[in-house]
């Protein structure tokens, strides 16, 4: 019960504070929208919020799924082979160091008009790095005794990976996935905002900006927050299901 009403109360206090701030300062709509302005904005564009929200959601999820596939593969290659780790790591660090905001216009130009492709691509590019690093670290730091226990019984490399290396890496993997899901979401929105004639919540945000419709822009922010929270908690639930053992029981 407390787990529900404490966060709920905090949220209500936050909204009241926001509303009061706008009211006390007498800010006009175009300077700062207040929570009471948001509902009308939602209602006016409810159809767009639904369709564009869906666009943003599936692009993020697809980008993230590709990031998981590529990240896990890269992590496995780097985790099992020292040579590959030494070769790939500087490349990955270099690639990750480039602010993805600067890559967005490049990709937008490369695949001009293909909104789905370039949005998914950016979501993937921005989010695979933490996954690859966590999997490679998880695998390369596997204590040799774990390997020996199975190897001394005549287990194959595949069995060792399946029975020990993979489950042992899951907590690190889910830690990285929580970071990656937020990053992928940022990637999707960056592209949706920049892409001309785009779709998705980012495009809705951009059209709010063009029309100086501040309540709409803030409404998009709230919608993005809701989607982001939902995605994050999906990961949390998956983590509990597959790596719940890593959570220590409270003493």
């Amino acid at each position, binding site marked *: 019960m407390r787990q529900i009403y404490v966060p709920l109360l905090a949220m209500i206090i936050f909204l009241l504070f926001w509303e009061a701030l706008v009211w006390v300062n007498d800010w006009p709509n175009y300077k700062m929208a207040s929570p009471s302005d948001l509902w009308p904005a939602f209602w006016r564009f409810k159809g767009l919020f639904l369709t564009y929200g869906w666009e943003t959601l599936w692009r993020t999820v697809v980008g993230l799924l590709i990031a998981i596939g590529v990240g896990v593969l890269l992590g496995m290659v780097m985790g099992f082979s020292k040579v590959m780790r030494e070769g790939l790591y500087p490349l990955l660090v270099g690639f990750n160091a480039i602010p993805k905001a600067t890559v967005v216009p490049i990709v937008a130009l490369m695949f001009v008009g293909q909104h789905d492709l370039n949005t998914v691509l950016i979501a993937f590019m921005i989010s695979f790095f933490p996954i690859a690093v966590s999997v490679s670290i998880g695998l390369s730091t596997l204590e040799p*005794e774990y390997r*020996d226990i199975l190897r*001394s*019984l*005549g*287990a194959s490399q595949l069995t060792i990976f399946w029975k020990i290396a993979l489950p042992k890496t899951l907590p690190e993997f889910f830690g990285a996935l929580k970071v990656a899901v937020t990053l992928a979401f940022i990637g999707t929105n960056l592209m949706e905002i920049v892409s001309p004639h785009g779709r998705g919540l980012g495009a809705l945000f951009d059209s709010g900006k063009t029309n100086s419709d501040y309540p709409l822009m803030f409404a998009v922010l709230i919608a993005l927050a809701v989607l982001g929270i939902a995605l994050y908690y999906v990961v949390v639930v998956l983590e509990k299901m597959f790596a719940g053992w*890593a959570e*220590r029981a409270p003493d």
Partner: protein
Amino acid sequence: MKTSHDRDLIVIDGVSHTFATNSGNLQVLDDLTLGVPENGFTAIVGPSGCGKSTVTRLVAGLLKPDSGTVWLQGEKVTSPRATVGMAFQNPVLLEWRSILKNVMLPLEIVPNDLNQAARETRARDLLKLVGLAGFEDKRPSELSGGMRQRASLCRALVHRPEVLILDEPFGALDAFTREDLWMTMHRLREEEPFTGVLITHDLRESIFLADEVIVLSGRPATVQYRQALPQRGPRNLDQLYTPEATEMLNILREQIRIARESEDAGA
């Protein structure tokens, strides 16, 4: 050389081994020869870093010797074989499995004709034998260090290996827990006969558990001293405090001192 060990289940025959390290080659074993008879239990002691663990990895087939041969049941050891069970100082239990499932792990890998129910019964029986009845469904993180080590012993024995290799399994435990586990080892040996190699740096442990103690020299290690221990029937901890035991401990301590000096001289 080999003929003298013909009847031994484990034979290490003239084995030398060298590791390549960053600071050059490091020879750890030099013409090491020893044997363990069937259902015998041999303790190997020696200065730290003298290559004791290398011996266990050679017997388990995890490592190939540069020269010489390791024999198990009259067969050359060239790769790991399912007739070996291992336990280390670190119990390396899988945190995501219950204690029962941890113990059952070897049965999932080693070919056997047990069905799921029979595997579970086998694991439960062993856990009961070491005093872990009632803890089958706990996670390793919920158990004390001594209990985890007991579970690790069960896992090493669950597939009824011919050879049990113990690499300082009680090294990280407190003195009282360690003595409890020594008694558990005797109980296990009575119920489940096996041929054992115990690596340890605890001389009391070696004379309490083993039928023979072998002292390895400093690096590169070879057999410096061997002492067969009289069979004494049922054991209890009082036997560690008899004049005979004290004398034995003094002899072994002196041998370790010599081994460490040989190492210092070599280095």
